[in-house]
């Protein structure tokens, strides 16, 4: 353990967000089930995609918590190895792209996002990147080429995807939420903005604690639909003359 203060602060902050995330998942799942149309049997896809994003986020938090508690050392970052946490974050971003694609009726964006994500996975597998799952480590190799040391360079790409991708998705969530006056999407942008800021300023523990503290406080009222950013448009009554 290189820095005990940092280790325990990040561990406690991550654990503090867990109850919020569990409540959020429960509330979102409940709302998703309630959104099912009794006639058509179709449920609200936006709610499902929001639920999936929070689920992936939960998974990406759980892995470092368990890893830190069991092995008493910090999880290796994405520059060193591909782990469940980074995969979940990538899944979360791609689900975010899917949500945007669904709202804007641009199905090709969704496919582009998933193909790019698939490309990252294949590239990482064939270029000998270490995949870590707790104590299990595996490295795929092709031919006699020496790939050692190159994996670090690759993770610049994944870092670019996770950080740049996440920032862009958050920005688009803000824009889309404002355009359609949708509290769910606008609120989700605010929720995911915090991890982006925390990730950018990872070296500053205070910023990290504030951002995750905000997530822990904000998550429950957001999931329960208590937070409203836009006033609902007043219903206009129009008198229709009977056709003669």
């Amino acid at each position, binding site marked *: 353990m290189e820095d005990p203060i940092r280790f325990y602060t990040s561990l406690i902050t991550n654990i503090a967000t867990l109850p919020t995330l569990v409540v959020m998942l429960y509330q979102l799942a409940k709302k998703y089930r309630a959104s099912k149309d009794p006639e058509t049997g179709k449920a609200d896809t936006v709610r499902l995609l929001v639920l999936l994003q929070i689920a992936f986020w939960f998974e990406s938090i759980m892995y470092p918590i368990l890893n830190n508690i069991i092995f008493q050392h910090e999880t290796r970052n994405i520059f060193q190895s591909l782990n469940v946490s980074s995969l979940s974050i990538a899944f979360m971003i791609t689900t975010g792209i899917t949500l945007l694609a669904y709202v804007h009726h641009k*199905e*090709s964006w969704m496919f*582009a996002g998933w193909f790019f994500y698939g*490309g990252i996975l294949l590239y990482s597998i064939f270029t000998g990147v270490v995949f870590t799952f707790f104590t299990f480590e595996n490295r795929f190799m092709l*031919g006699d*080429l020496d790939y050692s040391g*190159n994996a670090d360079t690759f993770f610049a790409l994944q870092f670019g995807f996770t950080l740049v991708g996440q920032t862009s998705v958050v920005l688009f969530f803000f824009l889309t939420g404002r355009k359609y006056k949708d509290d769910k999407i606008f609120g989700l942008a605010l929720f995911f903005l915090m991890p982006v800021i925390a990730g950018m300023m990872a070296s500053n523990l205070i910023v990290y604690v504030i951002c995750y503290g905000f997530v822990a406080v904000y998550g429950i009222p957001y999931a329960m639909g208590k937070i409203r950013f836009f006033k609902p448009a007043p219903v206009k009554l129009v008198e229709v003359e009977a056709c003669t």
Partner: protein
Amino acid sequence: MLAQIAGMWIVGIFAPVIYLVLAIVANVPISRKRKQGIQSLNLSFTVWLTFTVTMTMLRFVEYIQVINNGVLPGSYYIGEALSTWYIVPMLSVMAQLQFVLYIMRKYKFYSVPAILTFFLSLGLFQYDSTIAYNVVMIPLCYTASFLFLWKGVKNRDGLTFSLGMFSLFDYGIPYFIYSPVKYMGNMGGAMVYAPFLICALISVAFLNLGTWGWLDKHVFYDKERERRIKNAWVSRLIEIEKKKPEARKAAGRCIVVECPICHRQARKQFPQEVVLERARNEKGIVKMLLNQEKEVCEHQFVAYVDRSFSIRGYEPIDMMV
């Protein structure tokens, strides 16, 4: 000495010039159709052809340089193995794939060529290995060509068939000749690149046959139908039309319809005789209200279908009262 200079002139000047002229000539009928506004596909064809021809000309420059000097200058390389030697054919093949996807309306996969190019370039930039490049590029090159050929033969369309031959001869076949000579036979010297130049000329000649309609007139024509038309009066023609099997008529034609709002696609079957009856003359167009059952998406729209069952346009419906 004289023979060498003449050879250099033929390889270095005549082949690229002839190739360029033939490519421009092949584009003339398509440009004419584009000006008449017959189909939006013509513009994409011109863009694709211009891009492919530019890429082939760049390859010519490299081949000619190798043939004349024996080696490719090292300054072309970026990173470990990324160079114009790989980028140019890769862009050419990816443009082919993009065009095939466009023609087949596989809009879900439109991003695939760009993503593949990105990862292959990154791989070449990082590692001095062309394994992934070859594994992806060779099947893609042949797949695009064979898809064009298959579509051409299936629809009896000379232009599509010529696109297949163009793609095949532009890169596929010369690579097939070059690789065994270069790697298995380990021989040939710089002249192993000559097939690329010769086959490129053959490819553009095939393209001309397709765009100017020669293949349609002499290869893909229906002999039986022509014989019947020549020997029949108008009344007889109608009789022939009636004699067609009823089952074939009832089955109707399958068309891919696309929602003008959300661009979702679906296959719809239309009764052939109803469309032919409504659109009486050659230029007749039938207006159809589609998606009433909302089986494609949530929107409803009108499609304009001509006698050849091609969709000329769509119009969204704002409201149903």
